[in-house]
């Protein structure tokens, strides 16, 4: 039921974006000093039922490596339309990627989860290096990643 309400709110946001409640949210992803090449990162959301909801950013310039971002690739089939205009360079070890965008309020406290898949040349892939639910209470809190991601947080 909650996801149905969220879906309705999102649909409304698409139909009448001027009326949709949204706020700027900054996602901060800091990488470990893992001693390798720049990391490919996919930041994407799934909804309450685990279905793919959209990509926020994909860091990494060579599409032939996108299948190493296994969770994102499984969800999208590598569809380039999902990342048109939202790709950039890979992110070096120890560096911090900051992404700011207006997100609909309906995405919070509605079962949506932010996933970060990571991959580095000649090193092990790390799907879901970190995954955090999008909640208003979770804002500003830091979550540790498993392999390449030192920390992830979102502020609003």
């Amino acid at each position, binding site marked *: 039921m909650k996801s149905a309400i969220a879906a309705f709110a999102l649909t409304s946001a698409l139909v009448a974006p001027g009326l949709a409640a949204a706020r700027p949210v900054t996602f901060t992803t800091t990488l470990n000093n893992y001693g390798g090449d720049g990391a490919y990162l996919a930041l994407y959301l799934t909804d309450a039922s685990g279905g793919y909801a959209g990509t926020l950013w994909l860091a990494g310039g060579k599409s032939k490596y996108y299948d190493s971002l296994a969770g994102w690739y499984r969800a999208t089939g590598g569809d380039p339309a999902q990342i*048109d*205009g939202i790709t950039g360079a890979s992110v070096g070890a120890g560096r911090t990627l*900051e992404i700011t965008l*207006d*997100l609909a309020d309906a995405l919070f406290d509605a079962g949506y989860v932010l996933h970060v898949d990571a991959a580095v040349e*000649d090193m092990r892939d790390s799907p879901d290096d970190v995954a955090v639910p999008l909640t208003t209470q979770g804002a500003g809190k830091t979550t540790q990643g498993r392999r390449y991601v030192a920390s992830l947080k979102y502020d609003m």
Partner: protein
Amino acid sequence: MRIPWIAAACLAALPATVALADDDCHAPRVAWQPREAALQAASRLGWRVEEIEADDGCWEIEGRDAEGRRIKAKLDPATLRVVKLRHRDGDDDRRREDVRAPAAPLAAPPANPLFQNGKPPVVQVN
């Protein structure tokens, strides 16, 4: 994060005009020197080749240099000039970080509910 030889060969077989824009080498297919020539070039540099394959439009070589250090190198397939060389022994690993600013987003992000009012995200790497 590696592509198999067959995929690299298929890429190499494409017309030069459709070569990937972000490839590291850009020689047209007809200008490629054969694998044996690349191996000879590596030998002249004193390298012991353990693996060679086509990658990113280059001949990519893994092996040891004259001092026995592990290396990973890319040769321009037309000139056999070394375009990239990394030493990979422990602390001496010369890692290549992509520290460029993210590519400027296009005017419109994908049409999904995440992007309110069609505004692209603001992205920076620190």
